[in-house]
C-alpha cells in the first residue's frame, strides 16, 4: 500500500506533527501559493493567453525582456568564471587579508540593493571616480548605458558561485591531482581536465542562483541604468511603470512572461547539471 501524499508514513512518537505541518502549510499558502495562484489565474483566466501575448509582443516589451535576460546572462557568466577563480584563490592560496576578503564576498547579500545602486552610480557616472577615467581613456560611458546594468548585476550575483564552489574545492582530494601529475599531465591540463569537471555541478548551481537573482533585480539597476525605453529599460521596471498607469493586465502579462522564461532557463540549467553529474559518474 503506498502512502498518500502529505500524510505520515509510519506511526512515530515524535510530537508536533499537526502543529508544525499546519504552520508550514498555512504560511506557505498565504504568503506564496495563493498569491502566485492569483497571478496565474488573473493572467490565464481573467486576461487570457491571447491578450497577454498581445501585450508582450510589442517592441518596447520585447526589448525590455531581451535586455533583462541578456544582461543577467552576461553578468552571471562573468560571475561563473570569476567566482570559480575567487573560490580557488580563497581556498588554495595564502595572502595577507585573506580572511577579510573572504568575509567581504558576502557584502552583496548584506548591503541593500538601493545602497548598491546609488553607490555604483556615484563612481561610474561620467563625473564619478571610475566613470570619468573610463570615459577619458576609452571614450565609453558606463552609467546610464547597458554596461552599467551589467556592473550592477555582477555586483548583485557575485557571492553565489563563490559560495557554492568553495566547499567543493575544500573537499577535493589532493591525491587525485597528484595522480594526474604523476601520469604526466601539465598543471594546466590537470586543472582543466581533472579539477574543473569536479567543480562543474556546484558552479552551475551557483550560476543558476545568480541568474535567477539578477534577472529580477530592480533596486540596484534602476539608478545606474538610465531607464531609456527600448534601450536601457529592464523588464521589472516596465512592470512598475504599467502598475503606475493602473494597467494591471499589462503588468501581469509581463510578469508571467518573465516567470516563464526564468523557469525555462532554470530547468535547462538543471538538465545540464544532471548531465554533468552523470558524466562525472558521481553520486
Amino acid at each position, binding site marked *: 500500500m503506498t502512502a498518500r501524499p502529505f500524510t505520515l508514513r509510519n506511526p512515530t512518537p515524535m510530537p508536533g506533527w499537526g502543529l508544525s505541518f499546519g504552520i508550514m502549510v498555512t504560511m506557505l499558502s498565504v504568503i506564496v501559493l495563493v498569491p502566485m495562484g492569483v497571478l496565474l489565474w488573473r493572467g490565464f483566466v481573467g486576461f487570457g493567453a491571447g491578450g497577454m501575448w498581445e501585450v508582450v509582443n510589442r517592441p518596447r516589451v520585447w526589448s525590455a525582456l531581451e535586455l533583462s535576460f541578456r544582461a543577467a546572462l552576461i553578468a552571471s557568466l562573468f560571475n561563473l568564471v570569476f567566482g570559480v577563480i575567487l573560490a580557488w584563490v580563497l581556498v588554495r592560496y595564502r595572502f595577507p587579508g585573506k580572511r577579510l576578503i573572504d568575509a567581504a564576498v558576502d557584502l552583496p547579500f548584506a548591503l541593500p540593493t538601493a545602497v548598491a545602486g546609488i553607490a555604483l552610480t556615484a563612481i561610474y557616472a561620467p563625473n564619478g571616480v571610475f566613470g570619468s577615467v573610463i570615459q577619458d581613456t576609452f571614450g565609453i560611458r558606463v552609467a546610464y548605458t547597458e554596461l552599467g546594468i551589467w556592473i550592477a548585476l555582477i555586483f548583485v550575483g557575485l557571492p553565489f558561485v563563490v559560495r557554492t564552489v568553495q566547499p567543493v574545492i*575544500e573537499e577535493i582530494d589532493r591525491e587525485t591531482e597528484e595522480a594526474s601529475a604523476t601520469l604526466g599531465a601539465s598543471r594546466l591540463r590537470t586543472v582543466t581536465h581533472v579539477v574543473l569537471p569536479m567543480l562543474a555541478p556546484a558552479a552551475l548551481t551557483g550560476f543558476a542562483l545568480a541568474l535567477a537573482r539578477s534577472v529580477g533585480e530592480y533596486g540596484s539597476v534602476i539608478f545606474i541604468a538610465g531607464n531609456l525605453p527600448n534601450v536601457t529599460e529592464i523588464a521589472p521596471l516596465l*512592470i512598475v511603470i504599467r502598475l503606475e498607469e493602473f494597467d*494591471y493586465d499589462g503588468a501581469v502579462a509581463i510578469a508571467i512572461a518573465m516567470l516563464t522564461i526564468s523557469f525555462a532557463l532554470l530547468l535547462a540549467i538543471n538538465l545540464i547539471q544532471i548531465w554533468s553529474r552523470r558524466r562525472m559518474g558521481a553520486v
Partner: protein
Amino acid sequence: MTDTLTIPSRPRAFRPATTEPTVVKGALIALCLAVLTVLLFAPLIAVFEEALRRGWAFALASLSEPDAQSAIWLTLTVAAIVVPLNAAFGIAAAWAITKFDWRGKAWVFTLIDLPFSVSPVVAGLLFVLMFGANSALGAWLVASGFPIVFAVPGIVLATLFITFPFVARELIPVMLEQGRAEEEAALTLGASGWRTFFTVTLPNIRWALLYGVLLCNARAMGEFGAVAVVSGKIRGQTTTMPLMIEMFYNEYLSVAAFTMAGVLALLAFVTLTLKTALEWRYADQLAATHRH
C-alpha cells in the same frame, strides 16, 4: 673555449605538482583583488565619502528630519514583525520536514525556495493583485478601513514573501544531519513535546537559527523592489529606509540619500561581522556550505 660546468647559483625552488607557478598565483590573487576593489570596496567608500561631503553635522542633521525618522521607524517595525514570523515558519517547516516521514517533501522543499526565483517587483505585484483596490477583496478591505496595499500590512506581506526561504534553508540541512535520536531519547525519558524542543532541539540549532535570522533581517531591512510596488511611497507613512534613499536621491538631496545609505551600510557591516563570527566559532553547528 673550454667547457665550463655552469652551476646555478641557487637551485630552482621545488614546486609541488599540485600547485600553480608563483607567477600564476600572483596574477590570480591580483585579479581577484582588483575586481573586488572596483566592484565592492570602491562603492562602499563612495557611500561614506558622499555622505560626509559637507561634514558630520550636516549628515546627521539629515537623519533627524521627520521623514527620515519615520522611515527608520517603519523599517525597524517591519523587520520586527517579519523576522519572528519567518523564524517561526522556518522552525515549523524544518521540524515537519526533518522529524517525520511523509510523501511530497521534495515538492514542499522546492516551493519554499520558489521566492528566490521570483523578481521582487513581481512579488510586490502579487499582493497588489490580491489586496489592491482593483480586486473585490481589496475594495472591501479599503472600505472597511483596513487597507493592506499602500499600507504597512502590504509591506510586511511583500517582505515575508521575499525573505520566505531564509531561515528554513539554514535549519533543514542542520536538522537533517542531527537526526532524531536525541529527541527520541528525551521523549522516552518522559519529557513533553515542548520540553524536548526547548531543551534538546533548540540548543542544537540555535546558531544555525541565528545565522538564518541574521540574513533574513538584512534582507528585510534592505528590500527595495517588492516594497516599492506595494507601499505607494507615501512620505512619512509607508516609506521605508531604502525607499527614502530613492526619494532623497531623485530630489537631488545627495547628502541625505547617502547618509541614509551609510546607515544601512553600517548595518550590513554588523551583519557581515556577526555572520563571519558565527562561521568561525560555530562552524560545526551550521549548514555544511557555511563551513570554511
